[in-house]
């Protein structure tokens, strides 16, 4: 799939390159947010796009999330393709009406496309509870929104490119701890479609479905499991809406077991929907209950020892994968 233009880069740089390529081919794309032009955003997600595209297209905004998103919605309804960059996805709390009651509903009422991207960095890291809220499941519960959560540079680039050519409002999440995640990125024509999960590693014994920062952690767990002869199939969802359950189902039909690995709170996360849907569809095929990995239910603490205790890791994936495999035997 990768063209000759592929090169090793980081997730945030790949996102930026994808956005830059799209901006170059489509001048309806504008980016707005605080501290984008000079600083390149708080996560180096638009480094140098300011000088490259000018102040009209890379707009520093006042701290006013509701205004940015509203402006994005209205502009998207009127021929532009705006990217509202919130820096932290948490700041969407200040624009929730604009996202849920405006962006998401316009097409349903009037058939008018709202090609708007709201990008935010998210996931557990330092910075305390207000800057680390896991809210991807919220957006997946709002009809009218799409939700991307790439875990590799290739997907970050390919998904932002698809988002910029699509017609729907997209929440675009990138994990803090993956800002510098390295890997190949695709070329100008390597789009990643929404709603198509990637099988990162084939395996016959247990399916692990995951996304975001838990994707590499799940792969690490799979390596350790392989050392003991347990072959885990690791599926990276890449987008949470649409949610590619067909790929998951196909895999579970073979492995007859499923572990869902998310960093989000275990209680009520996207993993709950996946588990609920798979036990419905594959009740007779499952050899063990669908198990879920997710964080304990608490605000995200500052102290690194507490943060570590909250954050799911490769160990957890390994442990639950062993548990389902054992249940089966």
């Amino acid at each position, binding site marked *: 799939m990768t063209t000759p233009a592929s090169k090793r880069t980081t997730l945030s740089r790949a996102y930026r390159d994808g956005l830059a390529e799209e901006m170059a081919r489509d001048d309806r794309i*504008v980016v707005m947010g605080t501290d984008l032009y000079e600083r390149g955003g708080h996560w180096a997600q638009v480094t140098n796009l300011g000088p490259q595209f000018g102040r*009209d297209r890379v*707009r520093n*905004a*006042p701290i*006013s999330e*509701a*205004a*940015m998103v*509203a*402006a*994005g*919605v*209205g*502009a*998207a*309804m*009127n*021929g*532009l393709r*705006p990217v509202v960059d919130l820096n932290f996805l948490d700041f969407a709390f200040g624009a929730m*009406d*604009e996202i849920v*009651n*405006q962006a998401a*509903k*316009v*097409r*349903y*009422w*009037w*058939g*008018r*496309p709202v090609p708007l991207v709201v990008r935010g960095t998210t996931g557990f890291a330092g910075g305390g509870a207000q800057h680390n809220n896991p809210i991807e499941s919220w957006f997946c519960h709002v*009809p*009218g*929104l*799409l939700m991307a959560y790439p875990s590799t540079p290739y997907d970050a680039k390919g998904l932002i490119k698809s988002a910029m050519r*699509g*017609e*729907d409002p997209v929440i675009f999440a990138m994990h803090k701890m993956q800002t510098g995640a390295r890997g190949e990125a695709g070329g100008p024509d390597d789009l990643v479609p*929404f*709603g198509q999960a990637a099988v990162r590693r084939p395996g016959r014994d247990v399916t692990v479905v995951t996304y975001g920062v838990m994707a590499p952690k799940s792969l690490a767990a799979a390596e350790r499991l392989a050392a003991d002869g347990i072959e885990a199939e690791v599926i990276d969802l890449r987008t949470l*809406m*649409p*949610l*590619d*359950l*067909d790929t998951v189902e196909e895999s579970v039909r073979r492995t007859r077991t499923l572990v869902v690995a998310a960093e989000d709170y275990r209680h009520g996360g996207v993993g709950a929907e996946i588990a609920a*849907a798979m036990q*419905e*569809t594959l009740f007779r095929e499952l050899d063990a209950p669908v198990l879920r990995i997710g964080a304990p239910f608490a605000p995200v603490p500052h102290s690194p020892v507490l943060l570590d205790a909250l954050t799911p890791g490769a160990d957890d994936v390994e442990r639950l994968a062993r548990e389902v495999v054992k249940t089966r035997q």
Partner: protein
Amino acid sequence: MRAHTIPAEGADAGIDLTGLDPAQARDWLGRMLLIREFESTAGPLATSGAIPGGMHAATGQEAVAVGVTSVLGPEDVAAASHRSHHVALAKGMPPRSVMAELYGKATGCAGGRGGHMHLADFSVGFDGSNGIVGAGLGIALGAAFAQGYRQDGHCAAGFFGDGGANTGRVWEFVNLAAAWKLPLIVVCENNGYAVETPVGDAMAGESVADRASGFGLPAVQVDGQDVAAVHRAAAQAADRARAGEGPTFIEALTYRHLGHDIGERGQYRTTEEVEWWQSNRDPIARMRAALEKSGDLDEAGFAELAAAATARVKDAVEYAESSPLPDPATVADGVTGIPLQLRGTQ
């Protein structure tokens, strides 16, 4: 904030027609009559249940919508609030498509999906009513952003009420428009009440316009029951906007003749107050009187305008009533542009 009550006795109710084209002025009167007729017809239909759900009538506020939209073309945009039939119709939406939407019919502007708070017609530049207080201004802000970005010489008007002037989003929108000098006309329809709350109970300060001026844009207060005055303020604002000079804030002092919603029976304002506004500051009666005084309208001419309004609304009701209902099987269609691959029909 000053209570929104009866102006000093003897305040002049005359409308200054200087510089106006009589044909245009008559057209405004016709539009106001259309709105009045629409609300007078739809209201009882909502009360009787023929129109499902309630509605917010704009009776009494016609001049604000007609005056502001009088300076806008179809490529200029308007977006409004929960009380928006007047803006929708003034901006050029066909009464048929509005009425059918109220009825929840497939031929409504949203195919019956929206209802009276979710009217829109992009072909005439009406970017939507809005059920969330203040949110319509945000849509207009975005339209103005697109227009400013393209430098296409168009502009956008966003409407909200006095109650909206207490929401944070309205001031974020105003701030962004001013900071970015967007071609936006910010229209606060101050009708004195938010549901049952008088403006003075909810806001301190001099006036909404005064509050707005602190955000760095010109802010004026106009008599919202005088369509010519609203037109002049809007014309200045549109000129500024089209010239790239940025947004303008217009606080239009107006009054709703009816309740907050159909069926309201609140005790929060006196019958005298309501009657005073109806008798002394009715935007239609005032404009009619001014045109008759200037010799630009006679009884027959008025009757013709009124009859046209009546006919169009009657036609709209017939259209709505005879239109098909949406197909229940389509309820979850068209939520997004790409399929969502969801499982479980139910």
